[in-house]
């Protein structure tokens, strides 16, 4: 390095630090994956929601950081006595980023678009119960459901249910126009997305004037970027093994929270010998959850005994019913006529919870005589062979959709659990709006699938955030994939 460029470097470093000391109204947040595009209503990629949810696009309701549902573009609502008609009063004075007013027509358009025949909404099922959306007046929308649906307001909070403007649909994927507190300023594909504060925002103005999202997929590079202070925060830090180092460094804070990701050893319930509940029970007792959490996730993660998030008030701890007990597992296998064990396959998608966890599980299964042959697959391959083709014995995957116990009521879902009693239970739950009755039903549902040992329930995926010490307002938990810029500020 020549003297001249050294001087240049030194002076630009000085300029940068000086600038940061004055401003403190901008932030650079890193994420592992880049969104493919910016339309949350036509793709499942969580990275899209992380960038746009409540920042650019807003829905009638929203998730708060603690997982509760709050009104957003809908100021208030009335629900008919039979629970099928929702009348929403919209916020006044809301404008899209292009200046046009948001009104009942936009709401009708957005909901109709999501449930249309040719809709490409990844969560179309959320809207399946809607039989009609009617504009009462510019600030009032009436949504009629075919049947009562206790989780309808919850469904509307998803990123897939945000309100979009008909005239901006054409370019929504690269030039999103929403009603949120931030506008898209620039997108250098492969590198970063820049957002600027929306001066005409209808709600409380955010503290940040601008924000940059950077995309760093390599765990080592992620560590270097934080350590070199190139980024201010990392939304979901990919290398749990480095967290103690950040914890020990006063420059940083580490936020360990929970996600909606139930990480499970998915089991093909239709493939022998897994069609025998005894074999599945043996599987459950053969697994030492804590060893997996310690070995694969460096201790981050909460053991679960059913398909439900532990931070949900309706959660029941059922881990005791499938406690680690290899002797019991061997006895159960013998009862099922498989005293000599058997061979099966274990498909592992790319995330480290699966790849690292899979090695440990394979070793634990070998202890009781089950020989699981590991196949590493990419996501696209996993979707094709495991998810759609259903040609697998076991696989490890984290189901990250919030409140998704309903998948157990779909007999054609890839793990192929077909229990009419459970399906009835879910139908009753959907039709129930009374909170207490819903809690009881959800607890019954958790117990049913745990008792049937449908899948091996491992742990709730942790959300591991790292940020500079002065960053305030970051979500600790992830009730949905989101980085709520409006809540973020810097300590003085």
């Amino acid at each position, binding site marked *: 390095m020549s003297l001249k460029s050294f001087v240049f470097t030194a002076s630009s470093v000085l300029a940068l630090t000086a600038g940061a000391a004055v401003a403190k109204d901008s932030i650079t947040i890193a994420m592992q994956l880049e969104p493919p595009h910016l339309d949350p209503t036509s*793709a499942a990629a969580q990275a899209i929601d992380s960038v746009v949810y409540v920042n650019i696009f807003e829905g009638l309701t929203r998730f708060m950081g603690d997982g509760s549902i709050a009104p957003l573009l809908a100021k208030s609502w009335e629900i008919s006595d039979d629970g099928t008609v929702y009348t929403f009063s919209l916020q006044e004075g809301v404008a899209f980023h292009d200046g046009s007013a948001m009104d009942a027509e936009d709401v009708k358009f957005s909901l109709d678009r999501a449930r249309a025949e040719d809709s*490409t909404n990844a*969560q179309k*099922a959320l809207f399946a119960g809607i039989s009609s959306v009617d504009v009462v007046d510019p600030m009032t929308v009436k949504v009629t459901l075919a049947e009562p649906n206790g989780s309808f307001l919850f469904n509307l909070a998803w990123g897939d249910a945000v309100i979009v403007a008909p005239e901006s649909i054409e370019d929504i994927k690269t030039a999103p126009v929403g009603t949120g507190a931030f506008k898209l300023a620039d997108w250098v*594909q492969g590198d970063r997305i820049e957002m600027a504060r929306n001066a005409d925002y209808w709600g409380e103005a955010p503290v940040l004037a601008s924000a940059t999202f950077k995309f760093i997929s*390599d765990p080592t590079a992620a560590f*270097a970027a934080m*350590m*070199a202070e190139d980024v201010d925060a990392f939304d979901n830090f990919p290398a749990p093994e480095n967290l103690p180092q950040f914890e020990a460094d006063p420059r940083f804070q580490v936020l360990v929270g929970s996600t909606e990701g139930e990480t499970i050893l998915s089991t093909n319930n239709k493939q022998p010998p897994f069609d025998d509940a005894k074999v599945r029970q043996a599987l459950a007792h053969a697994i030492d959850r804590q060893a997996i959490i310690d070995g694969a996730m460096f201790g981050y993660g909460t053991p679960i005994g059913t398909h439900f998030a532990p931070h949900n008030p309706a959660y029941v701890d059922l881990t005791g019913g499938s406690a680690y007990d290899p002797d019991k597992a061997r006895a159960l296998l013998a009862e099922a006529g498989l005293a000599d064990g058997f061979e099966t396959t274990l498909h592992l998608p790319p995330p480290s919870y699966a790849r690292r966890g899979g090695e440990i599980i394979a070793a634990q299964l070998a202890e009781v005589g089950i020989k699981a042959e590991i196949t590493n697959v990419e996501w696209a391959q996993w979707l*094709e062979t495991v998810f759609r083709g259903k040609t697998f014995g076991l696989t490890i995957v984290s189901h990250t959709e919030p409140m998704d116990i309903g998948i157990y009521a779909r007999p054609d879902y890839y793990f192929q659990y077909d229990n009419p009693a459970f399906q009835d239970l879910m139908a009753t739950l959907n039709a129930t709006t009374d909170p207490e009755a819903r809690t009881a039903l959800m607890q019954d549902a958790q117990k049913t699938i745990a008792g049937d040992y449908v899948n091996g329930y491992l742990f709730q995926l942790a959300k591991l955030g790292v940020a500079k010490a002065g960053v305030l307002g970051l979500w600790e938990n992830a009730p949905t994939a989101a980085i709520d810029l409006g809540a973020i500020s810097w300590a003085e």
Partner: protein
Amino acid sequence: MLRYSLKRLLSLILSLAVASAVIFAVIEVAPGDPASFMLGVNAQADTVAALQAELGLDQSKLQRYLSWVSGMLGGDFGTSYTYRTPVAEMIADRLWVSLPLALFALTLSTLIAFPAGIYAASRRGRAGDSAVMGATQLGVAIPNFWFAMILVLIFAINLRWFSAGGFSGWDNGLLAGMRSLTLPAIALALPQAAILTRVMRSSLLDILGEDFMRTARAKGLSRRQALWRHGLRNAMIPVLTIIGLQFSFLLAGAIIIEQVFYLPGLGRLVFQAISSRDLIVVESVVMLLVFAVITVNFAVDLAYAAVDPRLRSRT
């Protein structure tokens, strides 16, 4: 010279035609569907079908191959399935990172390798030669991604002279752009320089033993004069070959370095596109790289002819 060039050009066009068919066939065979990938695990079958229709994935493979090739001939590489932007635009953006990076690395590696190789050859068997050869052994043996991490550790995390990665963009000035490419270029260049130094040295040593060199010395040139006037030019052929190969490698093979420094280059684009089964992007980028490799080889062939008149008459 003209006939030689035409012959090379014809083989270039044939290679491209064969390459396009092979690339398309190989990539389409990979399991996985871009529409299902986009829509995830909760999507309904009719939604996936709707997206497939929107993306044109419901057409036959032959139809898609023909429209891809005919589009490329007209400069249209199609539209990315996942990003929904024109592939040509995406590639152009990424080339603004990958091409300067490859050139930067190649320049560095040549700047190191030429003097080092000449020095080693002229000091054959002496301490200087052994030192250079020892260093190149090390350079070849060190994996470039590991070296990259060490560079980041020293220059980004400890000294803070450079950022740990990312690309500032050329909009912020040439110097800022070069600065973000410096560490990656060094990481890429070092192993290449080591290889090139060894080739340079051995090629020069071969030439030094030739009869015409003895003749040159007999005519009264000093050892150094003979080396510069007659030796170097003759030693260039294998060196040019290696430089040509290295450029192709640097353009396409920087994937890992781009990951380590999270640079928005071509390699990372291919990496992302493969995992999301954005087939049209993968096909177009691979095709472009094949095109680059073949044309670089073509240019190298022409350069041979320029430095070695014997090749021109031989055809």
